[in-house]
């Protein structure tokens, strides 16, 4: 967590770990993204940033169950899809009320999470991975066979969610800031959850389920609640995504999407607060960068993924923390050794 030896705000800032600095730099860049894309006259990159931020919300929600809770869900894209269809289907019936869209996205996702989670959480290990994936595919096939809403071809959304002038989804910059603030709120919520008694219980169950049970916690209920919160959060991201792309299709629920979300979490550093955001940024960044240069960029992507799993334990956050402790060790050998084990990544 925060540094213990800090004297006030100034001391806190000076004592930041490398990951802390990285977080501040990334946040500042993203806070000014619309200005930067305006200055460099690259409106395309504002689109990239918006997509990135939305996917980051989904990754942050997945990290809550995967990273902190140890629940390896391979069907998280289903919630993205449920949220998106919660915007698309009302639109199809000429209902444009944004409050309704987002309320629907959150409620539908949470209910789906409770129902499927109740079954999934009865299983362990590899069974859990596969049953979540199968439930994701179930939603996918529901979308594919929903002829009324475009089936495979998807559904174009011509009118974005309408918040009666309170929020403007039609302006690119405004939409970007709505997504960015949503991401900040999501990060804050996760931060509060994992540091609360509830979050400690969920994290404890990841570490040692038997012991948590022996201490008297109903692990199943804690996990299910956590699963539902993550599902609702991802459903919210899905509603944003539908507004951003003006289009919904079953393709956004496909199991490879779930795999990509998982990759973002691992790439950034699972079980850390900020990791999934970094992971989403690296993922989308690589995606955009590589696809400009080579048609077969997915080959490099796959190789990178394998290498990350094999060699970069802890993802970006882990690598940065390792780098820092390595530097501190070589530099601090002469001076006091007491400061050596400073702060690692959050959690």
């Amino acid at each position: 967590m925060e540094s213990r030896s800090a004297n006030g705000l100034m001391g806190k800032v000076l004592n930041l770990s490398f990951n802390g600095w990285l977080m501040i730099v990334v946040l500042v860049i993203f806070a000014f993204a619309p200005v930067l894309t305006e200055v460099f006259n690259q409106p395309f990159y504002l689109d990239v940033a918006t997509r990135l931020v939305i996917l980051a919300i989904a990754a942050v929600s997945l990290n809550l169950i995967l990273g902190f809770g140890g629940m390896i869900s391979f069907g998280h894209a289903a919630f993205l899809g449920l949220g998106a269809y919660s915007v698309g289907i009302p639109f199809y019936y000429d209902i444009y009320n944004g409050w309704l869209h987002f309320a629907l996205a959150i409620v539908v996702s949470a209910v789906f999470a409770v129902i499927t989670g109740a079954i999934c959480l009865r299983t362990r290990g590899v069974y859990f991975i596969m049953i979540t994936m199968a439930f994701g595919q179930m939603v996918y096939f529901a979308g594919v066979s929903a002829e009324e809403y475009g089936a495979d071809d998807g559904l174009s959304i011509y009118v974005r969610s309408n918040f009666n002038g309170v929020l403007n989804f039609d302006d690119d910059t405004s939409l970007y800031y709505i997504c960015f603030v949503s991401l900040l709120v999501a990060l804050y919520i996760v931060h509060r959850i994992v540091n609360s008694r509830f979050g400690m219980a969920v994290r404890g169950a990841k570490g040692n389920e038997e012991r948590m049970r022996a201490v008297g916690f109903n692990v199943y209920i804690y996990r299910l609640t956590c699963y539902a919160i993550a599902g609702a959060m991802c459903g919210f991201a899905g509603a944003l995504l539908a507004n951003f792309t003006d289009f919904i299709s079953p393709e956004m629920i496909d199991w490879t999407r779930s795999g990509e979300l998982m990759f973002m979490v691992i790439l950034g550093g699972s079980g850390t607060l900020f990791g999934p955001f970094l992971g989403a940024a690296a993922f989308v960044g690589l995606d955009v960068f590589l696809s400009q240069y080579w048609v077969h960029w997915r080959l490099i992507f796959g190789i990178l993924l394998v290498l990350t799993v094999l060699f970069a334990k802890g993802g970006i956050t882990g690598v940065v923390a390792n780098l820092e402790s390595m530097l501190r060790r070589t530099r601090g050998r002469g001076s006091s050794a007491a400061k050596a084990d400073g702060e690692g990544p959050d959690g």
Partner: protein
Amino acid sequence: MDAVLLVTQFLNGMQLGVLLFLVASGLTLVFGIMDFVNLAHGAFYMVGAFVCASLTFWTGSFLLGVLLALPVVALVGIVTEVIAVRTLYPRDHLDHVLATFGLILIFDELAHLIWGPAGIAIPLPVFLRGWIEILPGIVFPVYRLLIIGSGLAIAAGLYYVVSHTRLGMLIRAGASNRTMIGALGVDVQTLFTLVFALGAVLAGFAGMLIAPISEASIGMGNDIIIMAFVVIIVGGIGSMKGAFIAALLIGLIDTLGRSYLDDLFRLFMGGEAAETSAPAISAMLIYILMAGVLAVRPQGLFPPKVR
């Protein structure tokens, strides 16, 4: 109900079932023995189809193409195991899933590089193109019967290998206690490579069998691998018997569900409601089945004996 349609759909379901078994058996072997989750297993299905297509055009004979493609797929399996998979065995399942997800991207893109974006159809030899009268008044394509027959034959062969040969003994021993057979002097690493290659060949063979019907295409493995996972979950992960029974069960349920569910729904709801809801439900049917099985028996129908 029409008897001709019922028999035809039953056989189609069997065909899907044996193909699923060929893919799922490798998956369940690899999981049972190495405790390894291989999402990229479907890639061997695709590689088998593509390699067989190329070799068929090269040799001019589908049968020769299949025979020559089998060792190629085995080689691909061995190379994959040695380069990437071997280091992953001691890791947790999350790492398996992610790394093999990366392997899928690599395989799909390599196939794109080598064979191009379009699918390749394999022409069948003339003697396999005909139809045969299986029951009075019911005809069925010879080749589809051949798929069912060869799938069942391989299932029988696998049963023989696993339960009556020395290799099978090692496989069973490996599934129940890996450390122990290592301590007894068995070269575990070679055994693992062998089992992985065997799984790859089985999946590749399934891909070769289906290629003349639905052509070799990129991503074909990604569709079947999910169903194969459902099969091994329902059957009990690591169980060969479970994989066989669940594969046929799921093949039949999926196929029959798609053709008969709207008739079934019509019995207790309006025609229009049945027509709109049946396709959606039938597409989800096997997942509903899986959820049902797991809700009652989280370890699957035929869980392997305690390890």
